[in-house]
């Protein structure tokens, strides 16, 4: 209808894709995947990671043939601009005009929620990546939603595993909006289940320039650990250090996000926390391949936080197709994918039958100085098993 081109990027991927074209000529069938991501705007770097990861994932899963069960795989990226209207428009265009068989996406939870009902309506599977809101596989769940991304509760369990124990006093600091509340609440319940005691919950304006008052309050409550949930650019780290929180015997812990944020955490060197991915952490073949390929393809750059996620989404889809032998019937696929395990850069993931949330490895880390960079890097303390961080089922 309009200029939405099918940029099935496959052409310029590798030389092997050319061979695949001949192969598909035989069966004449293609499987189309539409990927929604924030390719512009504030979450642009996340979108970019998903995109790169997804491309590499398909390549890896098909051994570079871009084909599964004799069918060619084609994928189309669409920008959501982190705007639910645009996300929905893009999704419709993918489902209607491109007639994709799968949706993947997207970088923001709001965009994702604007799209999941369409999956139900069109009866197509959406693999949610990397949106983390619990509600996507919780209150807003529908049968067509599968999530390779971790959700906020998994983060919380990972964090709690690192610090909580009988009698430990904890406090939280989180931005005052859905993401922060979700994360803090999940952490609190996870930590309490491990016997910790909550002494204070603090929410701060995410756009604030000054966190003095918030930190001051936490100091007064004298917790053993302060768990900080933070995303976005305006970070509280400098002030946490400037206000000498550690001097008051409070240990700070948080999730380590993408590489760009590491320099902002210089002051937190030595901190114990967790992360869902850092390229040196998982020890498995898939990750080795990912790191190597990513480096060679992108000028030596290493894969980042959501690159592994993007790859996992691709791997999940290809794995499902392998198991159905290329059958794209959605019911069949759902049946296949429920309970399906597949190998990813983060080890084996399993879609839980009840809520389609992928249980996955998380990593307990310490931020340590490195010789290579002038910022600290997460060093593995312990890989947390998928079972350890399994979140409660929330879609009932």
């Amino acid at each position, binding site marked *: *209808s309009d200029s939405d*081109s099918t940029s099935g990027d496959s052409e310029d991927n590798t030389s092997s894709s050319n061979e695949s074209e001949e192969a598909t000529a035989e069966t004449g069938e293609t499987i189309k995947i539409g990927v929604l991501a924030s390719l512009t705007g504030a979450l642009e770097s996340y979108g970019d990671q998903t995109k790169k990861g997804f491309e590499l994932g398909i390549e890896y899963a098909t051994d570079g043939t871009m084909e599964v069960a004799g069918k060619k795989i084609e994928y189309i990226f669409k*920008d959501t601009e982190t705007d639910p209207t645009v996300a929905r*428009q893009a999704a419709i265009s993918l489902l209607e005009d491109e007639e994709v068989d799968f949706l993947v996406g997207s970088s923001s939870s709001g965009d994702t929620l604007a799209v999941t009902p369409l999956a139900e309506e069109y009866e197509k599977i959406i693999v949610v990546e990397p949106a983390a809101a619990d509600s996507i596989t919780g209150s807003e769940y529908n049968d067509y939603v599968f999530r390779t991304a971790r959700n906020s509760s998994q983060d919380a369990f990972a964090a709690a595993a690192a610090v909580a124990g009988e009698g430990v006093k904890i406090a939280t600091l989180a931005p005052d909006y859905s993401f922060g509340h979700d994360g803090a609440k999940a952490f609190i319940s996870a930590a309490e289940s491990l016997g910790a005691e909550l002494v204070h919950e603090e929410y701060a304006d995410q756009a604030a320039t000054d966190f003095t008052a918030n930190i001051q309050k936490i100091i007064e409550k004298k917790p053993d650990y302060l768990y900080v949930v933070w995303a976005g650019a305006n970070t509280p780290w400098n002030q946490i250090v400037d206000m000498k929180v550690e001097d008051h015997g409070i240990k700070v812990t948080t999730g380590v996000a993408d590489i760009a944020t590491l320099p902002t955490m210089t002051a937190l060197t030595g901190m114990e926390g967790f992360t869902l991915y850092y390229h040196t952490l998982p020890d498995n073949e898939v990750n080795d391949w990912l790191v190597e390929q990513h480096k060679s393809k992108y000028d030596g750059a290493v894969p980042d936080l959501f690159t592994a996620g993007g790859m996992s989404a691709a791997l999940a889809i290809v794995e499902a197709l392998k198991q159905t032998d290329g059958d794209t019937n959605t019911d069949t696929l759902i049946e296949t994918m429920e309970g399906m395990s597949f190998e990813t850069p983060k080890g084996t993931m399993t879609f839980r039958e009840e809520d389609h949330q992928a249980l996955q490895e998380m990593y307990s880390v310490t931020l340590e100085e490195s010789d290579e960079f002038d910022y600290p890097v997460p060093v593995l303390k312990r890989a947390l098993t998928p079972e350890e961080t399994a979140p409660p089922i929330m879609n009932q």
Partner: protein
Amino acid sequence: MNLAKVEKSTWIYLAISLLLVIVPFIVTGRSMQFIIIQFFIFAIFAMSYDILLGYTGIISFGHVMFFGIGAYSTAIVMNRFDSTILSFILAIIIAIILAAIVSLIVGMLTLRLKSHFYAMLTLALAGLFLVGAEKWRSLTGGNDGFTFSLPEILRDSQSLYMLCLLSLVLIFFGLRRLTKSPFGRVLMAIRENEKRTESLGYKIVHYKVIASVVAGVVASFAGVLYSISLRFVNTSVFATDMTIDVLLMTIIGGVGTLIGPIIGAGLVEFAHHWLSSLADVHWIFERWIILYGIVYILVVIFFPLGIVGTIQKKFFNRQNYQKKKQQNPRRKLDEGRKEDEDELYRNG
């Protein structure tokens, strides 16, 4: 003679509306339809804004609060009740009543303020609504938002298209009549010179409040349509960006005309869509937002009064100029032409 005149433009608009009715039978792609639906919705929203900006001379930076009220009312009602047409009607009624009450209060509280201050105050109030939506998470789901279901008929893209088109046409004609009524003329007088309007015996605060209520209710209705077109709502319906978008649409099209905001909405929607799709064509367009920004700059340079406004002015000037050339000063003018131009210059 005059009647025939008015009818002529009305006919043109009706003809265009009819054409638009046929569109979904030609453009069957739902994604294109979705874009056109968004265009209709924002055209309604922008027209409501123009009642304030173009006709009454009020700059508001918080008009989005009514849009958000409409969107949330619908989403919440549809989420809590059965997804039937009846609940939908209930949603509309609630949306309109809420918007009317809020715009009445906001109007009475703030309309005595002068331009900038009014603008900033509305910005603040809309900001408070945004914070409210963020905080009242049990009702709104916070900034992630929530989805809801709709009766079958409203899920159908075709019928949604028709609903939005019908709303647009009715609201357009309704507002057009309003702006051309004696009441509408007084609004324009207020825009031009408040004090003087007062001393002609008009109570300006009444007019401003009524204008603000009309604009609020229409915006709220646009919000209703917006949320059903998305079947999802989150706090972005209260975001300042949305006000800025609608402000841009109105200005690009031309303030003080009704057709202007519609054209502006179309231009912004389609330019956005087209430019962003360029990103797929060549990597050089990955930064298409730069082009998008340049479009705004060019519009100001080449269409200082907005697209419709500038074209009308050119037309008006030319006619006036020719007339001035032919006529000696004291000759009486032909009545018909006189009204014509008056019309032309000020109305859509």
